[in-house]
């Protein structure tokens, strides 16, 4: 791979991390990769900004709610000073914006590898049930709600899940707990919310990459071994379960998915029943497990974004474990100042620019 510059978002490596640092670590893990990586952050305090072994520079970008024009103008400004070859957005809330400006980005020479808007919307939490019905995939009963009373009128059995449209989910055991969860989610993410049937079983997550024609470039399934308070994976291990791969391939084929995705499946191994819980339209935060197990999906994405042919991965290492850890990163006041005042922190200048 020639020396290229890759921009990655989602470098908020907090207790509930974005996928950005995992993507960057995967790219750095590749023996072939010798390029430049810049982080695109929404917050000066995103830890990825200060990880010098991850990013050569970091730039603040406007929040998705500020709209397409402001986002595009911000990317153009960054691109002028630090030319980007490939941009990998990695957060649910920003993806639709990047899908909408991908043609503009391509005209600037910035390559992306994103799903079509239609496919992106079909797999959204509030329309997932219809997609599953059309494709004979088991899915928990899910309802979209706009008020607390809706939960009462649904008359569903507890426990159940209350979910935000993009992030966050709470398992609740009573109407009182449901009303608390409703308040929290509503304040944080707004309406509508989703109410989902609770499925007993074991959860498996699959990181995968689709080529846009319906083919799967790679897929690595993982079982969570330890969880945070928010039920996010703190440790996980690759498993060998063909049914998980089959369902993932079926989804990618049905959506003609282009780009990375994370499939969440609840499985009752004994009865061989597999329920699709969610399709996340991006790499998961734990995506570094994939190259560790032999499928460097972020690297494959970069190659495909640049128009190169990539052969599908046929296998991966079973029993490969990841364990996350937390670590203090040191930064100087001038680093924070750079980010807050200038909106950028350059650890290493791009080629052709003076230090």
């Amino acid at each position, binding site marked *: 791979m020639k020396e290229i510059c890759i921009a990655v978002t989602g470098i908020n490596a907090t207790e509930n991390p974005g996928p950005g640092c995992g993507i960057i670590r995967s790219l750095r893990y590749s023996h072939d990769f010798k390029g430049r990586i810049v982080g695109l952050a929404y917050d000066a305090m995103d830890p990825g900004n200060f990880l010098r072994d991850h990013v050569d520079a970091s730039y603040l970008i406007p929040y998705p709610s500020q709209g397409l024009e402001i986002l595009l103008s911000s990317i153009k400004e960054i691109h002028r000073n630090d030319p980007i070859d490939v941009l990998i957005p990695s957060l649910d809330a920003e993806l639709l914006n990047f899908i909408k400006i991908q043609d503009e980005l391509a005209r600037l020479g910035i390559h992306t590898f994103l799903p079509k808007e239609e496919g992106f919307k079909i797999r959204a939490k509030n329309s997932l049930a219809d997609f599953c019905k059309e494709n004979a995939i088991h899915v928990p009963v899910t309802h979209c709600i706009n008020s607390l009373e809706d939960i009462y009128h649904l008359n569903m059995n507890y426990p159940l899940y209350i979910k935000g449209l993009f992030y966050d989910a709470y398992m609740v055991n009573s109407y009182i707990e449901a009303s608390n969860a409703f308040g929290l989610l509503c304040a944080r993410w707004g309406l509508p919310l989703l109410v989902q049937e609770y499925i007993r079983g074991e959860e*498996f997550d699959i990181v995968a990459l689709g080529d846009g024609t319906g083919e799967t470039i790679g897929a690595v399934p993982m*079982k969570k*071994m330890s969880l945070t308070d928010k039920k996010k994976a703190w440790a*996980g291990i*690759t498993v*060998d*379960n063909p049914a998980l791969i089959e369902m993932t391939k079926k989804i990618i084929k049905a959506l003609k998915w282009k780009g990375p995705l994370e499939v969440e499946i609840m499985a009752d*191994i004994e009865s061989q029943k597999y329920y699709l819980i969610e399709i996340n339209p991006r790499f998961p935060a734990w995506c570094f497990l994939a190259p560790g197990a032999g499928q460097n999906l972020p690297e494959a994405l970069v190659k495909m974004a640049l128009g190169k042919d990539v052969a599908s991965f046929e296998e991966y290492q079973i*029993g490969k474990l990841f364990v996350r850890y937390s670590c203090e990163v040191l930064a100087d006041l001038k680093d924070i100042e750079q980010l807050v005042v200038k909106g950028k922190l350059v650890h290493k200048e791009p080629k052709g620019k003076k230090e």
Partner: protein
Amino acid sequence: MSFARLKQIAISDSGFIFNPLNGDMFQANSTGLFLLEQCKQQKSIEDILSAFVEEFDVEKIEAEKDFDLFLKQIAIYGIIEKKQE
């Protein structure tokens, strides 16, 4: 009980067990490891019991009781299947 699933289960010499189907991990003691190895060879219950009695010098009735409990436990863990082949 069916021991067919044991062909897929990774069992190390130290008794560490990994079920690649669902990622579950267990640790067996030397007795458990001996029994698992016997089961993995798809031997009959009668042959496993005879080997168990001989290896650990226990009464057959005690061996039967312990082996039955052991099988029920590993079936709960999904290491073997309850159904017949």
